[in-house]
């Protein structure tokens, strides 16, 4: 660990001690090799599980049990995938996840940015109070809400419906926060011009402010997509019918052996792999944005 600190950027050196400099240089080169070695080992640890997962999903049950590490199946078989797609509820789960994720993402982007805009730009009585409430609300841990959410969803008569799955997720307080921060960071002059032109608030928001907010919108789109695609607990308490099961809920039930009493790892791993694909695609498509957050939601 100690050797991993290396830096070879040209620095103007006051070389008062030739020997010390040489030692430092030597340790830097030495350290660099170690650094790469360490990083490569850690990267292997982080990647290998996923490679094993994909390899195992193409194995037979017996092969998976007998050779849990091998990366090449003895016999390639797509039995797990065929079973998933042709002979289980998996396509239904997938469809539900897609529907819910798309609607929730669209809703969150829209409502979060509306509220964020109002809280950062519009002056109206009660704004401070709303903001305080928002911060208070954000401090409530989600798991505390399992029972409460079930109670309200049932009370409103939207239990076991798309409405019950989607409505409670439509606002994400942290998304409002991100949008508010962003709007505070962009100059006000453009809107002011529009205001003088007597354009309506919504029109200003929709056709002037939102287009400027693209970086932040991309950020909350990614977050909302990932968040709702991976959401589990809310769907547990808001639905019961198999027709409304999402991927997370469905695969969790697979894990506890819904399709068979046996271990059947290939099919479970195949299901887990397929459910990872959409977020993985999103991740790789917006990798730059995700990794360099400084461009995104950040204030100047």
């Amino acid at each position, binding site marked *: 660990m100690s050797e991993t600190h290396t830096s070879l950027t040209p620095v103007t050196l006051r070389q008062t001690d030739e020997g010390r400099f040489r030692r430092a240089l030597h340790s830097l080169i030495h350290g660099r090799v170690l650094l790469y070695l360490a990083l490569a080992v850690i*990267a292997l640890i982080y990647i290998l599980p996923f490679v*094993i997962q994909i390899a195992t999903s193409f194995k037979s049950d017996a092969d998976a049990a007998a050779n849990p590490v091998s990366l090449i199946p003895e016999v390639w078989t797509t039995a797990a995938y065929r079973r998933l797609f042709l002979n289980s509820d998996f396509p239904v789960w997938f469809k539900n996840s897609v529907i819910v994720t798309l609607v929730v993402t669209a809703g969150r982007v829209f409502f979060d940015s509306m509220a964020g805009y109002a*809280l950062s730009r519009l002056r109206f009585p009660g704004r401070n109070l709303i903001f305080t409430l928002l911060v208070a609300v954000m401090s409530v841990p989600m798991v505390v*809400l399992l*029972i409460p959410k079930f109670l309200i969803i049932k009370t409103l008569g939207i239990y076991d419906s798309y409405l019950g799955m989607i409505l409670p997720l439509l606002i994400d307080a942290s998304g409002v926060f991100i949008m508010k921060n962003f709007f505070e960071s962009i100059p006000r002059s453009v809107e002011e011009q529009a205001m003088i032109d007597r354009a309506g608030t919504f029109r200003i928001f929709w056709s002037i402010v939102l287009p400027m907010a693209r970086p932040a919108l991309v950020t909350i789109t990614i977050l909302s997509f*990932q968040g709702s695609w991976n959401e589990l*607990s809310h769907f547990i308490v808001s639905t019961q019918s198999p027709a409304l099961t999402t991927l997370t809920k469905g695969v969790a039930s697979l894990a506890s052996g819904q399709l068979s009493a046996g271990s059947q790892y290939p099919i479970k791993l195949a299901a887990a792999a397929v459910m990872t694909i959409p977020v993985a695609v999103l991740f790789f498509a917006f990798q730059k944005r995700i*990794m360099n957050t400084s461009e995104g939601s950040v204030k100047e």
Partner: protein
Amino acid sequence: MDVTGTQSHGATRIKHGNERLSGWLFCMPMLVILGVFLVIPITMALWVSFSDWSGRGSPFSSHVNFAGFSNYAAVLTKPGLAQSDFGTAIRNNAWYTLLVVPLQTLLSLLLAVMLNRRILKARGFFRTAFYFPSVTSSVAITVLWMFLFGASGSINAMLSWVGINGPNWFNDPRGLIQILLGSIGISKGPSVLTQHGLLGLSWWEWLAGPSVAMFAIMLMVIFTTSGTFMLMFIAALQSIGEGTEEAAIMDGTNAWQRLWHITVPQLKPTIFTVVTLGIIGTWQVFDQIYTGTKGGPSKTTLTPAYLSYSAAFDNQEWGQGAAISFVLFVIIIVMTWIQRQLMKDRKMSRRKTAYYAAMKAETLASAQSASGLGTGQGSARSTSTGDAEHV
């Protein structure tokens, strides 16, 4: 935090009346949804936690009676199964937090420091590799982990290469500390520890340590969260710059000293955020338990969040389930408060005070979507790195 902002309001006056209305209209969807699906349900659940509602019909019907503190008493003070289950869950989660938070913070800091070298080649590749587990769902990762750590899974197969007979991870209820003590021949605790206890568990049981099964879950969670926190640290490191450090290198201080004496102090605000998020997240672990172990083996992976759920949804003890969730809420608040006290600077400059206030709000923002931990922490990244950079 100053929410009114300092923007000019010259033009604002023109549309003042209009803004008043649109302000409310713009916030209305948020207010309605947060009100209906957060504020009101919490009040309803608070009532349930003080009632004898058994899960059928309305909790507000005349059949349901006020039960005082009996649900809270059942889990906190009255000896019995409900109390010892709650004690077990708290024990498990306390060990979980105690180990996961420092480990994930250290690991992500280490990864960030390693990657924060301008000369490093393939930096993008490494960052992607380390961050990828964070975007996958906790359900998918748990399924994968059950395979890797199965009795004859990949991990044990690899361990066998070096002659180690690996444990049956997810079915091994032995506590790590008890295994350690057992290996030096201590298999029974002193009567001081076995005869007295708290929440229906003897001190000896409290000190058993996390079970092997829980340990496997900890590894999984560290695996999935380290990437997110790594990005937060990287952003913070970039804002620090490398100047001071480079000077220090030439002064002959070694890398370890530089890390501890130069880098870490400057990262303190980010460490604070990461630890706070860690504490909030680790006390909420649910998805992994629901998907994987369901609390087993021997209840050693039972957590308060899962217990609250199963008390209500499996055993019709809705009052107790709601009571547990409110106790958990209090625990999270107390834990983050204690952490704040411990990590607080003794003398805080005004700038720092303001910064902490901002950090607090932003932490809360992130915690909201970090709930359930696992992978939800994507949002922690963008808000927090944003502010870390800003400061």
